């Protein structure tokens, strides 16, 4: 509803603008009746706008801030100008024509702010708009009214707010980390030494991945030019057991932009996080980098490059990372990476249906990983199932469900658990041909039909049962940070673009979120834009607190990637227990490259910040 209100308010503003300008035009043409009708329309649209702003304000101040402080007051000034001139009598006059046009300019401020500036509207933006209206009024007067001696003072007066506003609104400098003196460089915060660990009896698992370009062949025979690890897409799966020490050497053969490995969702020491330009330099062709960390948490994760990740991940620089619980797993344990190659959707490297023979009674766990930049809708047909885990963390008391779809955020993971029955089971993803089927050995493959489109989507705010949590919405928080996601004109990579913004700016101009080690951090994420933003937090898992102001009533949800849809407000919390400087960003990687990223920095830690493309 909130997203619809945002659109409707903007369109009402545009309608109001058009009606005022049309009225001005009609008045100048001495078409009084038309002018009166258009003025009525403009005023009605304005009243409608104010109603919509009031309705929108219920969703939160972030959605109306620029409307309440700038757009609506300006529009009212325009109405006042018209009212003043109308009081002087019904005859058309140059004054009236100018007043009607000015009302149009003031009404336009709202839609322009909404489309191109967003939250928050600053003094600077307000002054620029005021000055622009004044200058436009002057030009209109000059065009409409009898010629008068040019008055430079008048022009200067009109332009003054414009100049002042520009000075105020000038983009803040890239967010440098203050207090870098004596600060610990994040590249020095590394995982345990494998040799020492090995001597202490910790099992060490070693892997080597070589990044190179290759032409890969999907199951249908379709060939795709890809950036790969070891010539395959997805890269080799890394499956280890809880308690292992993982050592992964990445080499770069011919990816000219460089590569890194980011352990998506795994809370490694910051020096192992693989954010190029921040926690390490990108690994250029001929170079290598060794990652090592303790796999102390079981669950479904993935790794991917974090240097030019858009387009790097899209072109194939990713793979699965699964940590199995120490007792091991029984039954069938399948990892299913979802990826779109160009316009071809595939599960793993299969862009056609896949059939697995499964004996009845077998416990099956489907670890589904969304490596795309858009959410996917998962429909598991022919069996009841449980959502056993989300983003690698087991849910508490997940109930058995049937004929419901699971929405999986970009970058997110869902583990679906079921016990194979006698009926065939089909996993459908959106409406793609690459379905996954489980059938009793020796039985026919079922036809690929289903009514999954009509299924409701599983409501994760009330799935499972509440469990023990170290903090909740009522805890006392040490820090509050807010991220308002929008679009707007901002600098990204030193060039002005229509950026994906956080709090009105594109990275690296977004104000860094500062924390101290041990802080309990409250994070509010607001989506004012028209796109879905899967927010990915590095180095920490957040506990979901509220969704659009309502508490989560089901299992505690510990997430590293949560989908904030247009008009939504999420409140989440994290314990600052992994010191460093972290890159939190939208995992629609095009949005991240377009500015939607922010640093979460611990006091006493420093990272270079020159690298916007690492997002």
């Amino acid at each position, binding site marked *: 509803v909130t997203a619809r209100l945002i659109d409707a308010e903007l*369109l009402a503003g545009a309608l109001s603008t058009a009606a005022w300008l049309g009225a001005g035009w009609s008045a100048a043409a001495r078409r009084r009746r038309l002018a009166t009708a258009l003025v009525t329309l403009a005023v009605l649209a304005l009243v409608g706008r104010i109603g919509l702003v009031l309705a929108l304000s219920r969703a939160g101040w972030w959605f109306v801030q620029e409307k309440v402080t700038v757009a609506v007051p300006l529009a009212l000034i325009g109405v006042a100008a018209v009212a003043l001139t109308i009081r002087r009598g019904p005859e058309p006059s140059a004054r009236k024509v100018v007043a009607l046009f000015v009302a149009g300019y003031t009404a336009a401020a709202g839609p322009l702010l909404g489309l191109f500036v967003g939250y928050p509207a600053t003094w600077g933006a307000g002054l620029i708009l005021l000055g622009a209206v004044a200058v436009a009024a002057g030009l209109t007067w000059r065009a409409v009214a009898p010629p008068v001696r040019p008055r430079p003072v008048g022009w200067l007066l009109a332009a003054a707010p414009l100049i002042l506003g520009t000075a105020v609104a000038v983009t803040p400098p890239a967010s440098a980390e203050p207090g870098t003196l004596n600060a610990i460089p994040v590249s020095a915060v590394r995982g345990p030494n494998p040799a020492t660990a090995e001597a202490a009896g910790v099992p060490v698992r070693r892997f080597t991945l070589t990044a190179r370009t290759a032409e890969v062949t999907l199951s249908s025979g379709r060939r795709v030019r890809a950036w790969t690890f070891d010539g395959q897409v997805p890269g080799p799966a890394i499956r280890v057991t809880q308690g292992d020490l993982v050592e992964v050497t990445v080499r770069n053969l011919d990816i000219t932009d460089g590569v890194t490995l980011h352990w998506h969702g795994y809370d490694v020491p910051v020096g192992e996080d693989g954010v190029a330009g921040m926690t390490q330099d990108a690994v250029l062709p001929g170079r290598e980098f060794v990652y090592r960390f303790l796999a102390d948490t079981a669950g479904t994760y993935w790794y991917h490059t974090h240097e030019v990740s858009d387009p790097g991940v899209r072109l194939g620089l990713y793979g699965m990372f699964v940590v199995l619980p120490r007792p091991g797993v029984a039954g069938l344990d399948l990892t299913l990476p979802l990826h779109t190659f160009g316009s071809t959707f595939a599960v793993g490297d299969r862009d056609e249906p896949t059939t697995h023979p499964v004996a009845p009674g077998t416990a099956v766990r489907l670890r589904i990983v969304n490596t795309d930049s858009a959410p996917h809708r998962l429909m598991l047909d022919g069996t009841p199932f449980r959502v056993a885990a989300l983003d690698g963390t087991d849910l508490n008391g997940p109930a058995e469900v049937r004929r419901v779809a699971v929405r999986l955020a970009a970058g997110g993971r869902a583990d679906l658990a079921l016990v194979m029955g006698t009926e065939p089971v089909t996993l459908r993803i959106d409406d793609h041909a690459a379905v996954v089927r489980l059938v009793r050995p020796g039985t026919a493959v079922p036809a690929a039909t289903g009514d999954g489109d009509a299924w409701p989507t599983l409501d994760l705010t009330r799935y499972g049962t509440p469990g023990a949590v170290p903090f909740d919405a009522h805890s006392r928080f040490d820090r509050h940070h807010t991220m308002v996601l929008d679009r707007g004109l901002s600098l990204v990579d030193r060039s002005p673009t229509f950026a994906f913004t956080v709090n009105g700016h594109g990275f690296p101009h977004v104000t860094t979120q500062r924390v101290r080690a041990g802080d309990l951090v409250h994070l509010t994420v607001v989506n004012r834009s028209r796109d879905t933003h899967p927010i990915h937090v590095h180095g920490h898992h957040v506990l979901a607190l509220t969704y659009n102001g309502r508490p989560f009533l089901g299992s505690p949800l510990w997430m590293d990637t949560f989908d904030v849809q247009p008009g939504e407000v999420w409140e989440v919390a994290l314990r600052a227990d992994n010191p460093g400087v972290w890159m939190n960003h939208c995992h629609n990687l095009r949005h991240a490259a377009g500015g939607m990223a922010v640093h979460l920095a611990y006091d006493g830690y420093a990272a270079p910040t020159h690298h916007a493309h690492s997002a």
Partner: protein
Amino acid sequence: VRKVYLAMSGVVLIAVLAQFYFAAYGAFSIPREHASFGAHSINGLMVIPLASLVTTAVAALARVPGRLIGLAAAPFGLVMVQFLIFVVVHLVTEMTMERSTPGAQAILGLHAMNALAILAVSVRGVVRAWRVVREGSARPPAEPVAMQEAAERIGAPA
């Protein structure tokens, strides 16, 4: 000032023509990459609106008839309509960046129709500006007048 007005009208027209080129450039990229529309998006978002606004200001300073001032502002207004089309699509359809719907595409077709309107007003803007410059010196200086003439400036049948 009138020559600047003509020159700026020309800049708007060139930017609009380039916009059509960039649209086709992006539309034929395979696989369809959003980045292929980068030039289209920058040109449409910044160059055309700014050029149109500057032309409008110059036209007003040059005291050309009101109708021509409106004509200079028309590309700006119509480019804003291009954005509003996307807002309407978002309001009334379920289209996302990843998946279009038939209804959304039906509305988005208007993007091209409106583009033709932008082209039309840009061409007309250059033609009229050219005429103003050609006849400019022959035009008598404006007299102090009342509303009658003001209406004429706006270019409407009084």
